[in-house]
């Protein structure tokens, strides 16, 4: 599913903000936080921290329950809500 991005409110977002959400990615050469879907296995959504040059993975966890932001604080807050947070 790719890089985690913050989804603006579709009802109020300016069109440029919405299109940036659709298309613009930070595409770093280094550590990045992504949302993955394990299609061929457990069919769960999860969050991965992966290095895009070495493909090393340093963390994977259930996604934050109430936010899709890739802001690190938001994700750790989501993790603290417990293992049943589940995919949105």
């Amino acid at each position, binding site marked *: 599913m*790719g*890089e985690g991005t913050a989804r603006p409110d579709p009802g109020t977002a300016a*069109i*440029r903000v919405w*299109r*940036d959400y*659709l*298309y*613009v*990615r*930070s*595409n*770093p*050469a280094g550590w990045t936080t*992504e949302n993955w879907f394990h299609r061929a296995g457990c069919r769960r959504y999860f969050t991965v921290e992966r290095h*895009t*040059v*070495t*493909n090393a993975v340093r963390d994977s966890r259930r996604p934050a329950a109430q936010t899709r932001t890739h802001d690190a604080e938001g994700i750790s807050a989501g993790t603290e809500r417990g293992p049943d947070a589940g995919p949105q």
Partner: protein
Amino acid sequence: MLSRLSSRNGHGMRARYSAFNLVRYGIGSGEWPRVWRDHGLKASYDVIIVGGGVHGLAVAYYLAADHGITNVAVLDKGYIGSGGSGRNTAIIRSNYLTPEGVRFYDRSVKLYERLAGELNFNVMFSQRGHLTLAHSDSSLRTMHWRAEVNKLEGIDSEVIGPQEIKALVPFMDTSESTRYPILGALYHPPGGIIRHDAVVWGYARAADALGVHIHQNTEVTGIDVTGGRVAGVRTDRGSIAAPVVVNCTAGWSTLISDMAGIDMPVTTSPLQAAVTEPVRPFLRPVIVSGTLHIYVSQTDRGELVFGASVDPFPSYSMRGSLEFTEELAGHILELMPSLASVRLLRQWAGLCDMTPDYSPIMGVTPVEGFYVDVGWGTYGFKAGPVAGETMAQLIATQKTPELIAAFGLERFARGALVGEKGAASVGH
């Protein structure tokens, strides 16, 4: 056009490649002169081009040859052609799906056709035909769609059936008993392959002769922007001032645009390729199968060059993988079972800067003087000449040429995407 060509030819190379000079340097005494020179960094240039691949060098060459702008530097963090220009599978074609794409790539084929004479460098362009196989009704329908768009734009392109395919490629299994039987193909006779290193070297040599400075092993570490205008670049060899900076860095283009504060709708993914040991010539056209995710051609030396679709997730890693090789080999054998005993020599990967609509991003940016020629995904090499010509025209005239008007960065904010489903045929 011809007069412009002859004026390009008259720029006095220091050692023209000719039969006379071959005898003079081959049999007589003396060594061939250096093909391009090394220079110290100047404090300023009129134009700085970041990325010394076919795109960057072509922009530099056409700036000098067409517009007389010669105070130009091309910077590359490695050696010229070390990125996508030396890693692609060297396929040239123009049978795309959108009219914008077809017109654009057709101009590139035309420029490639006369490139060897223009640059006085043998680029070994071999127009041996290009076949895009259809294994399903829906892909056959898309082939018909592409053929009709191509014909309207004056491109030699048509759909042919299994018997005609068999006549062109006798070693191909066109029977109905395969896992994915071949129903037909889009046949594009002007398509073919080229020696990609020679294109890079030819542009570099011609640009150097016109006064362009090529700086290899010079990594850009920052871009200076003041008051919304580009002011220059910082490199690991020192700073350079310039009113115009052009980003021609393909897979790394996000990182360079970030330095100027420009967000890009781009993700970088590796694309893997492989080459076999040489065998006697048996395969004339280039073969592409979207269903099997492969393309294959035979070089003039007899090696088979294979390419695949991009890896399934973004990465800046250029390592190959065993899964890729196994899958590729299996799919090649579906088409040509007699290749089972041919050995692979090596595999590699290049980085593709993929855009949401499989079309490039070319032209101006919100930072004045900072231009992009990026988003080249899996189709950048074949566009090198036309991208160089149009970007040079844009920089020299400050007017966006008609051919690239559809490919501007602002199309994403406007929602005017150019869905190029004819791109690479295998990536999606």
